[in-house]
């Protein structure tokens, strides 16, 4: 058994969790003394002591015991802990953490016991790297694992009805065989009895079938749940790096004799552990820099009418497919004069007479390895912090920005792309495709009657929340480059909040919400900005995840009604109308010309090809049924011709069946309009959306 070989297997998991609680608890206690944090710490230390004794980890148990001894007198809340008591707690905490991480795996423990077991408090440099940083971010919380195990157990439990069902099927099989025997022999039981047995058999088979279907449905649901939870395990909450940062701030503050409050936001945002590890390492330098260079000594702060206590805030934020890590302090900001002097001394500024502006100087900090610190202290200096952030940014394909306002503080911001993104999505169905919208961008959903949907489609607007929001059926955005398939008019509008305001997208149906992990589109699959990322559904097939910002741009771009003509819009190229019927040609020409387009006419596919090669058109509007080259062939030929492939084509036909629509789409038509349902406004909307402009 695995347990036999590795008796520490479960202890490691539990102890890591308890050490996390203790590390965070000590810092809580440091900031807010009181019986409540003391009680929590005592419980964690006590649990750890008990567990360590069970697995004969005497060292850990003894330290947990010593930890408890310090806390017990303060259980009733009799005042704050003395400074040396706090020191001792931190020292024990570090030792316990080091010992627990040395248990990581039998090999690791054998390889690195000397450094890990060295008491951390004795060496000032050691205090700078207190708790191991990487493993902390690189694992899933036990609570998540418990949930996953529960879900697996649940799925397993659903197997029982299936197993019973197998026995039932076995029994029914025997009954059927007996019945067949009776029928074959043709004597024995009278016909009425045989019929009764056959009927009973059919009934039982029916109910067994229903039970099977139910059981399979349930298992499918449970497995879906298991899958979602397992996917989530690949991602770790950003909050796991906060304890190490908080401890670094505390230690640096103490060595500098400053009072500093640490604030952290965005602990729940989840991302890949491989991102959090390096970011945590770099941000340890950033927060130390903030404490040492940023926050002024108390007297200076008071003189500048600032609170005596400085603030260092770390914030994690998700912005679309990006994660932003921000460290802001309310200190003196970057010392621009010092920067200028250093830069000049090192010849980094060049002979230019113009003095560098603030941002140029800050960029030097970012790129040049210069520091604002007048001296190199043991906790910060030499611009090492910024180098570390820059390296992480390069490694993770991100960017760093530095902002500073003299006297008010500085901000370092690291933005990195997220390969995997955990989110809750609203699944929507449009034009036969299911796509997902990030739920946090959804402001609301509105049910649309057929009339409302028609009005919305014509006016391109929908009344919402006392205003008129721009509207676009999602299917039109999803089928860029091909024909929108036949689908009922939108049954609902989803209101999406974006930087450009709220926009409405029309969907056929809302298909519930689900937890999902989104990843970027593959490199070789360029798409329109409407698609932000892609996830994998329960069947292993890709599902598109919409980008709210890109969707808004598409809605506003296609949205011409009401607005004065967009200033940047260039004039459309002429439109080529192809139809063998004179009436249709003339009707279409009058519609297009009154909408402000220039129109050329062709009476056959052959003529159209000839014209198309002699002049640049913005769009081809063609009938299907024509003698000679028909509409399908015309579209195919123009698509295969590199010169003409860029001119969108719309097919107009009286053929209303889905098969012809599919054929049109496959041929490469960008839209398919049915003559019988000829709607001038719909046609013009298609044309305005597709036409190539000069």
């Amino acid at each position, binding site marked *: 058994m695995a347990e036999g070989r590795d008796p520490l297997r479960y202890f490691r998991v539990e102890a890591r969790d308890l050490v996390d609680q203790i590390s965070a608890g000590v810092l809580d206690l440091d900031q807010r003394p009181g019986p409540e944090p003391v009680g929590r710490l005592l419980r964690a230390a006590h649990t750890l002591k008990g567990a360590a004794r069970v697995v004969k980890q005497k060292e850990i148990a003894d330290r947990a015991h010593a930890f408890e001894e310090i806390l017990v007198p303060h259980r009733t809340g009799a005042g704050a802990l003395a400074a040396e008591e706090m020191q001792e707690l931190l020292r024990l905490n570090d030792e316990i953490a080091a010992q627990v991480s040395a248990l990581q795996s039998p090999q690791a423990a054998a390889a690195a016991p000397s450094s890990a077991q060295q008491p951390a408090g004795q060496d000032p440099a050691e205090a700078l790297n207190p708790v191991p940083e990487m493993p902390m971010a690189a694992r899933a919380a036990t609570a998540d694992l418990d949930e996953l195990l529960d879900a697996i157990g649940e799925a397993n439990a659903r197997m029982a009805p299936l197993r019973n069902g197998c026995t039932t099927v076995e029994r029914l099989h025997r009954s059927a065989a007996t019945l067949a025997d009776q029928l074959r022999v043709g004597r024995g039981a009278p016909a009425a009895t045989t019929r009764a047995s056959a009927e009973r058999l059919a009934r039982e088979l029916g109910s067994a079938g229903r039970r099977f279907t139910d059981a399979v449905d349930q298992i499918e649901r449970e497995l879906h749940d298991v899958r979602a939870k397992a996917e989530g395990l690949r991602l770790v909450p950003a909050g796991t790096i906060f304890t190490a940062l908080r401890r670094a701030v505390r230690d640096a503050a103490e060595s500098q004799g400053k009072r500093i409050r640490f604030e952290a936001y965005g602990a729940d945002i989840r991302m890949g552990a491989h991102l959090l590890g390096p970011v945590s390492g770099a941000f340890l330098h950033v927060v130390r820099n903030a404490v040492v260079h940023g926050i002024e000594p108390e007297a200076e702060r008071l003189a500048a009418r600032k609170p005596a206590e400085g603030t260092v805030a770390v914030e994690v934020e998700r912005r679309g497919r990006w994660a932003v890590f921000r460290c802001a302090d309310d200190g003196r900001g970057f010392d621009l004069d010092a920067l200028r002097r250093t830069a000049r001394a090192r010849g980094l500024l060049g002979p230019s007479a113009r003095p560098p502006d603030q941002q140029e100087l800050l960029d030097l900090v970012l790129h040049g390895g210069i520091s604002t610190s007048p001296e190199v202290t043991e906790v910060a200096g030499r611009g090492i912090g910024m180098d570390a952030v820059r390296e992480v940014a390069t490694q993770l394909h991100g960017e760093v920005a530095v902002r500073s306002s003299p006297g008010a503080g500085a901000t370092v911001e690291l933005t990195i792309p997220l390969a995997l993104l955990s989110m809750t999505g609203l699944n929507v169905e449009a034009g036969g495709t299911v796509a997902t919208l990030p739920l946090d961008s959804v402001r609301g959903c509105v049910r649309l009657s057929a009339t409302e949907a028609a009005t919305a489609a014509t006016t391109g607007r929908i009344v919402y929340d006392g205003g008129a929001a721009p509207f676009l059926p999602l299917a039109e955005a999803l089928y860029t*480059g091909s024909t929108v398939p036949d689908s009922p008019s939108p049954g609902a509008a989803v209101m999406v909040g974006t930087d450009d305001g709220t926009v409405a997208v029309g969907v056929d149906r809302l298909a519930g919400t689900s937890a999902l992990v989104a990843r970027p589109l593959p490199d070789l699959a360029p798409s329109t900005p409407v698609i932000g990322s892609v996830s994998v559904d329960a069947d*292993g*097939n890709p599902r598109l995840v919409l980008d709210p910002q890109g969707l808004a741009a598409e809605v506003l771009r296609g949205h011409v009604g009401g607005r004065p003509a967009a200033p940047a819009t260039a004039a459309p190229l002429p439109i080529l109308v192809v139809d063998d019927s004179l009436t249709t040609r003339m009707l279409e020409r009058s519609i297009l010309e009154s909408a402000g387009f220039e129109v050329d006419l062709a009476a056959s596919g052959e003529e159209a090809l000839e014209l198309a090669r002699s002049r640049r058109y913005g769009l081809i509007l063609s009938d299907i049924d024509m003698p000679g080259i028909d509409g399908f062939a015309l579209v*195919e030929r123009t698509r295969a011709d590199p010169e003409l492939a860029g001119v969108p084509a719309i097919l107009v036909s009286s053929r209303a069946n889905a098969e012809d629509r599919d054929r049109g789409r496959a041929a490469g038509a960008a839209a398919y309009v049915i003559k019988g349902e000829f709607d001038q406004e719909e046609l013009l909307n298609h044309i305005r959306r597709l036409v190539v402009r000069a």
Partner: protein
Amino acid sequence: MTGRTVAERVARLRTDFDRSFAEPARVLDHESVELLAIRVGDRPYALCLSQTSGVHPDRPVTALPTTLRALLGVAGFAGTIVPVYDLAALLGHPIAQRPRWLALTAGTPPLALAFHELDHHLRVPVTDVVDSVTDGSGPRGYLDGMVRLPDGNRSIIDVPATRALVHQLAGHPLDPEESR
């Protein structure tokens, strides 16, 4: 014959026999090449088996809004999301019918090429493969020789060249390290 030589011969025969199972069939000899006879649109072609890493029928493809005509969408392969390109469109003779088969190409990033019919799998002597006369026009740039078969000659699709075309269309430069 001494017992010793018999034992040696038996041992050698056994080793040869075992090895014939242990080694992948395609490296059994260097005198032949393995091909998939396929139909792209309605035209016959051949694909080198060594340039593909899998062939799959009827895999659902999620369509993407895109301006690339040849990009059919993306499909899922064991959790990896793979772009799917229509071979007929890449070779310059698209047809309306949706292709049924996907061939995963060797190399990275992942790429699947879609074609309409899989005729058969065959191993032919390398001497049956001849260099085609390149006149530099049309799809010939994406072909790599011809193979003589009883049911007629087939052009062999140059998968690396086709991949390079896809990279160019997608605006993603072909990284020599990636395609290794």
